[in-house]
């Protein structure tokens, strides 16, 4: 196969690489001509080398079922996606601004609740949210930070601008794949790196460790930071273990931890050892069986009390998810203005809230044009893709919305931008999004780029890896 750009045509969508068929965007010119220069067998060799690298490096995500565990190799396309640094610098500021406002908002919800008194956000909307944790009322975590690690999904519409699609403030995953994608690209395309000044992504684990260490209640030089995983049967286990390894932190399971005198300890071969900060990768409701889900075997009894007493740092803090509700999302631009007095740098995708009567009416009348999302699902589940749905599906959704309007919001079908993937015969356009990761505690950090997710099926908008999505290395390039 040789790469032939003449037949590459993304149609009406914004393409990351070309401005019109045959014309590369300025930042992508060297990439485009390099790929064109590759001999036929070289293209397929590189593709094979990448999939082999992924296999031996054991970069996987796991789908476990009754029939046994399927450890799937991470789906990866070898053509990197390039974003000019100038554009990224603005985007990065916008992300940092957004997470700052979200943290002020969460802290406000669990403390003074000024945002309700000032009628910015309806009180009921928050208190009825499935992610609101009354157990967290009155708690003041270090730096007022609740969401220390945030993954915000960005998309580009036809106008070529970035819009925020959603914020993930609970246990966002994907950052390990961002790092491994770079490693694989370096293995298979080292020549490409000679043509570009690419911002490195490798310091993420160090920044993550610094963020976590900053919230240690004990002010000691090397606080004991651990990553709490639900275990090998979790689909993101690879990432948990990867991050622990890169931070030099212990990867612990619930059974490794024990709470005594409201302090957290881990069971080691030398007896119990004090734990200062837990980067928990299990959901709120499984954290502590004495407070939340009583049947949870993943969590640690007494953990909440230890946290409340200030004897252990938890990232992200329990209850942080209250702000990543898809209905709360619609208020974020207002919240930025309210808490920071600044205009939002990054726009939201225009959205309709079903709890608002007028807007709900509009949604119900335009179900065939809209995407409807439930407030609390993640991974792309439970959505209605209006334009592609059948009449029955739309009717069923209308019933669901009427029964529980608070639980739904709707957005016009946004056109995700496209980027070329290496198909079986040639480069082909596929829709993509971008998940950058934002760290916040004493300092803020935004990953240069993030994880570009690709809907590998032609025409599809579904980028989630659990539903057949793939990914690309993402380059922020100095021009």
């Amino acid at each position, binding site marked *: 196969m040789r790469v032939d750009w003449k037949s590459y045509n993304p149609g009406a969508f914004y393409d990351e690489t070309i401005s019109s068929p045959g014309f590369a965007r300025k930042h992508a010119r060297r990439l485009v001509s390099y790929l064109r220069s590759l001999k036929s067998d070289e293209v397929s060799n590189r593709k094979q080398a990448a999939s082999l690298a992924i296999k031996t*490096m054991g970069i996987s995500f796991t789908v476990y079922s009754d029939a046994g565990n399927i450890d799937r190799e991470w789906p990866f396309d070898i053509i990197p996606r390039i974003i000019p640094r100038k554009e990224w610098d603005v985007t990065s500021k916008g992300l940092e601004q957004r997470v700052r406002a979200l943290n002020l908002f969460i802290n406000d919800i669990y403390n003074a609740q000024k945002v309700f008194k000032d009628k910015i956000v309806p009180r009921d909307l928050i208190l009825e949210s499935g992610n609101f944790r009354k157990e967290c009322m009155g708690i003041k975590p270090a730096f007022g930070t609740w969401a220390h690690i945030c993954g915000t999904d960005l998309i580009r519409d036809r106008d070529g601008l970035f819009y925020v699609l959603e914020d993930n403030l609970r246990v966002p995953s994907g950052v390990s794949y961002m790092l491994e994608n770079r490693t694989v690209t370096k293995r298979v395309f080292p020549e490409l790196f000679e043509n570009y000044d690419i911002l490195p992504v490798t310091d993420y684990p160090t920044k993550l460790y610094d963020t976590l260490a900053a919230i240690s209640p004990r002010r000691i030089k090397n606080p004991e930071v651990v990553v709490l995983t639900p275990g090998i049967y979790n689909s993101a286990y690879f990432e948990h*273990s990867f991050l622990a390894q890169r931070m030099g932190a212990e990867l612990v399971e619930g*059974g490794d931890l024990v709470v005594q005198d409201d302090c957290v300890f881990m*069971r080691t*071969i030398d007896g119990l050892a004090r734990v200062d900060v837990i980067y928990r990768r299990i959901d709120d409701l499984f954290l502590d069986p004495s407070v939340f889900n009583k049947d949870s075997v993943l969590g640690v009894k007494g953990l909440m009390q230890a946290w409340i007493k200030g004897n252990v740092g938890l990232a992200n803090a329990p209850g942080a998810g209250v702000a990543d509700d898809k209905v709360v999302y619609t208020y974020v631009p207002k919240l930025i203005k309210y808490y920071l007095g600044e205009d939002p740098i990054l726009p939201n995708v225009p959205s309709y809230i079903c709890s608002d009567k007028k807007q709900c009416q509009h949604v119900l009348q335009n179900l065939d044009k809209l995407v409807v999302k439930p407030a609390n699902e993640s991974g792309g589940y439970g959505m209605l893709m209006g334009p592609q749905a059948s009449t029955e599906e739309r009717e069923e959704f209308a019933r669901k919305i009427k029964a529980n309007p608070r639980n739904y919001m709707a957005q016009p079908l946004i056109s995700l931008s496209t980027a070329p993937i290496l198909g079986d015969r040639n480069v082909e356009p596929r829709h993509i999004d971008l998940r950058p990761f934002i760290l916040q505690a004493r300092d803020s950090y935004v990953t240069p780029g993030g994880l570009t997710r690709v809907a590998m099926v032609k025409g599809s908008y579904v980028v989630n890896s659990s539903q057949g999505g793939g990914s690309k290395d993402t380059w922020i390039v100095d021009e």
Partner: protein
Amino acid sequence: MLSRVAERVYWMARYLERAENTARLMNVYSNLLLDLPRGTKVGWHTLIDISGVNKEFAATGRSDDERSVVRFLLSEQNGISLLSVLAMVRENARTTREIIPSEAFEQINDIYLNIREKSAGQVSRSARNLLLEEIIVHCQQLTGMLEGCLSHNHVHRFIEMGRYLERADMTTRIVDVGSGSLLPDLNLDNKTDGDSNEPYQDTLWMSVLRSLSGYQMYRQNVKDRVNADDVVAFLLQDSEFPRSVAFCLERLKGCINGLSDNSRALRQVRKVVRNTRQAQIKELLSDGLFQYIDDLQVEIAGIHDQVAKTWFLPHT
């Protein structure tokens, strides 16, 4: 170091050692059968006996012909076969990925995927030998990699403990083979005169040494022709041969010494050391070696019990 992690790296190392030893045993055994005269009543079942998996094999209800035995020990998903053992190496490595060197994990992953592919379906005799040799080389590469990349810390100690416990246990099993207790039928159909068996006895003892890559070291060390007395003494008591029981115990002691709260485990190791050192090989060979080895195996298992009790997570 987390107790859970200690347990997993320990088992990773045990299974890795077991995979290598099983591959050696199968390889040598295939060769041994070719050396023995036709009519010898040594069957493939002996391989099942040595591996100590009689019950499990019997449960399959299959006859003990070459094909069944080899499949049982090579590629079936039964928790015993080489492939199952390698899968357990990988699973334990996967759950401790954050602490073992990443190139070691890549290697483990690679071995497993490779062997799984090659052992699927029918494997011819010659392909089998190549495959077994490949496994042995891979396992040794991995052991070398762990030696070369891993700091000699607690992780390393638990890896060594797993390796040497498994190795000591396997060496006792292999001595058992040579001792004749598992080969009662070496007497050939057409010969009743004991002396005429001798060349085959030698062949047998040589195979025993070869299965432990010990033939060369034995010759350098013992300088006498291969004979039962010296081979058994070499495999049980030699302090320099890395597969002898005495050597393994010495390394185990070294690891345990570096850990806290080690008195019970040390006591058990010392007990086994004493029993190995004081064994009267000549007398045992004429009578009682089988029982002696059996007891030794129980005592080695006792070391594992103490290790688990002291340092692993309590199983609830």
